[in-house]
C-alpha cells in the first residue's frame, strides 16, 4: 500500500529525514518510535504533504500513485489521514461544520454524492459512539478550548468519519489518561480492516499494549535504524534508546 524509498527531506536547509525506507502493506500496523527530535513528526508531515518541508530525494508510492506529486487535500481524499500531534484550533467553525465540509469534499473526489444533513448526522452519531465523544464537544469551535485529551479524541473521531486507507497517528497517546487511551485505542482497532493500514508514532510502549503493532521501527537522526516486532518495543521500554544511539553513533564514526 505504502512504499517509501530513500526519502530525504529538509526544512530551511536542515536535512531532517535522511533516507527513510519503509514498506507498509494493507492490514498492517507499524509503530514508529524514537527519541525526541528524531524526525517522526517530520515524516508524518511529509507524507501528509506539508509544504514547508522540501523533499530532496526519494519516492513515496501510495496505492500505485506517486504520493509526493499530490496536493495535500488530494492525499487526504486518496485516503491518507494524519492525526496531528498538535491539532490546531479554528475559532467559529464547529467540528460538525468542519467535518461536513471535509467529508463532502472527500466524497466528491471519490465520485460519491454529498451526504445530506440527516445522513450526515446519523453517520456522526454512529462514529461518536465509537470514540465515546460528547456531541456537545462537536458543536463547539473546532479544538478551541478543548483539553489535550479532547483534542486527541476528536482527531480519532475525524478519522472514523473520513474512513481513511492509511492512518498516521502522531503521538495520539500523549495527553490521554489511561481510560481515554483505552477508548481511543479501541476506536482505532475497530476501524482497522484488512484493507487499511495504520502507522502509530509513539514514545511509549503502553499504547502498543492496546494497538498491537506488526512491526516496530526506531527512527533516529532521520533514519530507521532498527526494525523488529512488538518485542522491540518492550526492549526499548526496558532499556531506553541509549543503546541504539550508541550503536548508531559508533557505527557512524568507524
Amino acid at each position, binding site marked *: 500500500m505504502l512504499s517509501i524509498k530513500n526519502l530525504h527531506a529538509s526544512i530551511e536547509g536542515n536535512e531532517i529525514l535522511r533516507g527513510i525506507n519503509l514498506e507498509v502493506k494493507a492490514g498492517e500496523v507499524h509503530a514508529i518510535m524514537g527519541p525526541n527530535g528524531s524526525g517522526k513528526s517530520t515524516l508524518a508531515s511529509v507524507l*501528509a*504533504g*506539508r*509544504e*514547508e518541508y522540501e523533499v530532496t530525494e526519494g519516492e513515496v508510492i501510495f496505492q500505485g500513485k506517486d504520493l509526493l506529486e499530490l*496536493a*495535500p*487535500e488530494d*492525499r*487526504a*481524499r486518496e485516503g491518507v*489521514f*494524519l492525526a*496531528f500531534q498538535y*491539532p*490546531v484550533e*479554528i*475559532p*467559529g*467553525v464547529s467540528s460538525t*461544520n*468542519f*467535518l461536513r*465540509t*471535509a*467529508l463532502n*469534499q*472527500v466524497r466528491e*473526489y471519490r465520485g460519491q454524492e454529498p451526504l445530506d444533513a440527516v445522513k450526515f448526522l446519523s453517520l456522526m452519531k454512529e462514529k461518536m459512539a465509537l470514540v465515546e465523544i460528547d456531541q456537545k464537544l462537536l458543536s463547539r*469551535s473546532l479544538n478551541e478550548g478543548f483539553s489535550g485529551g479532547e483534542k486527541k479524541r476528536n482527531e480519532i473521531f*475525524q478519522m472514523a468519519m*473520513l474512513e481513511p486507507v492509511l492512518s498516521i497517528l502522531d503521538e495520539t497517546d500523549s495527553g490521554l489518561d489511561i481510560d481515554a487511551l483505552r477508548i481511543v485505542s479501541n476506536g482505532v482497532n475497530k476501524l482497522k480492516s484488512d484493507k487499511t493500514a495504520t502507522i502509530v508514532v509513539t514514545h511509549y510502549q503502553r499504547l502498543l499494549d492496546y494497538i498491537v503493532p506488526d512491526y516496530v521501527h526506531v527512527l533516529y537522526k532521520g533514519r530507521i535504524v532498527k526494525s523488529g516486532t512488538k518485542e522491540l518495543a518492550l526492549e526499548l521500554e526496558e532499556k531506553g534508546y541509549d543503546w541504539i544511539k550508541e550503536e548508531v553513533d559508533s557505527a557512524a564514526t568507524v
Partner: protein
Amino acid sequence: MSKDNQILEELTSKEYEHGWSVNYEADEAPTGLNEDIIRWISAKKEEPEWLLEWRLKAFRTWQSMTEPQWANVHYPKIDLQSLKYYSAPKQSKKPKNLNEVDPELIAIYERLGISLNEQKRLQGIAIDAVLDSVSVATTFKDTLGKLGIVFCSFSEAVKEHPELIKKYLGSVVPMTDNYYAALNSAVFSDGSFCYIPKGVRCPMELSTYFRINAANTGQFERTLIVAEDESYVSYLEGCTAPQRDENQLHAAVVEIYAGAHAQVKYSTVQNWFPGDKEGKGGIYNFVTKRGICAGDHSKISWTQVETGSAVTWKYPSCILKGDYSVGEFYSVAVTNNYQQADTGTKMIHIGKNTKSRIVSKGISAGKSQNSYRGQVQVMKRADNARNFSQCDSLLMGDRCGAHTFPYIDINNPTAKVEHEATTSKIGEDQIFYCNQRGIATEDAVALIVNGYAKEVLNQLPMEFAVEAQKLLALTLEGSVG
C-alpha cells in the same frame, strides 16, 4: 521566499462577478456641479420649491467645506466637476406598477439574481430597485400599504408624503454634517423611504438594491427610515456596480429614526466594484449613516458586511437619546488587493441606562489597508451607560495592514466601557489542517474566515447571511494558496 509570500504572489482575485454594464437610453444631467445642475435635478424630479431651497442651502454650505483628510485612506483628488450628477434610464412614461416597468430594466436586476417579479420572489422580502439615479421598481407595495407601511422610492415619497419627508429629512444627518453628507444633500437623486406606523411590526424584510450602471456618474442616494413608537422593521441594502477603469463616486446618506420601544435592524452587504488586482478602478464609497434612538427603550442595530469598493469611508452611528435605548454595530470589512477601508461606528450615549455593543471584524489580504475607527461618547446625563467593543483583525499575508482607532470620551462617572481588540493571522497550520482533511485551500480560507466573522454574520437575515458568506469567500479567493 516564505510560503506566505509565495502564495500571496499568486494572488488572483476572482473577477468581480457583477462587472458588466448595459446600454440603455439614459436621461442624463450635463457634466459638472453648480447651482444650475441642482436646479436641473430638482426640476427633473418635479420637486417642490422647499426641497430645491434645501438642496441649494446644502450646496452653498458644501462649497465652504473641505474634504476630510483624517481617514486612513489615500486616493487621488476626485474631480467633482467631471462627474454627472443624474442619470436615469429613459422610460416613456412613469410606471404606475411593476407591470409597466420596462422589461429591459427588470432584466438588469434578474441578471444580478434579483427578481422583481412578486410571484417569483421568496416570500418575505419587498424590494426597491435603484438604478443609477432613480428607483425603477418597488415590490409588494400594496401588501405593505394595507398595514399603513410606506415603502417607496424617495422621489415618490416627496410627492406622496411631503409632510413626513419635511419632518425627518436631515433630522438625523443634518445637511451640513460633513463634506460628503452636504454634497449628498445638494445632489441626492433617489433612494428609499420607509415609514412604519405606530405599533406595526413589518411582516417582511424591506430591501433596497442599488446598482450603478452609467459611467462617470456619481450615485448619491438617500435613505430615510422612520419607525414610530413600538414598531419593528428589518431593512436590507445591497449594491453592485460595473467594472470600469475609472473610479466612480458613491456618497449616500442613510437616516434612521426610532420612536419609543421601536426597533430597527439595518443590514448591508456592500459589494461595489473593488477595483482590479492592480488597484485600478473601483468605487469610492463615502457614506454617512446614522440613526437616532429618539424614544425610550428603542433600539437600532447596524450590521454591515463590506466586501467591495476601492475606498470605503463609513461609520454607521447611533445617537442613544432615549433612556434605556440600545445601539448595536456589527461589522465585517474585508479588503484585498489594493482596497482601503476606514470604517467603524459612533455610539453617542445621551439617555440614561443606554447600552451599546460594537463587534468589528476586519479581514485584510493582499496589499490592502483595513482600519477600524470607533467612537464611544458618554454624555453628562447618561447615567449607567454601558458599552462593549470588540475589534478583531485578521491578516492574510504580511503586505496588508490592520489598524484600530478607538476614541473614548466619557463625561459621566457611572459609565462602564469595555474595549477588547485582537489581531491574528490566518495560519498556514490552520489551512494545512483543513487540507489534511480533504478541504481545498480556497474552501479552507472561506471556512476559517466565515468562522472568524460568525458573530457578525449571525446577525444577518438568513438569506443575506448565505450571500454574505459566499461574498467573503469570493473576495478572498486566490489570496492564499
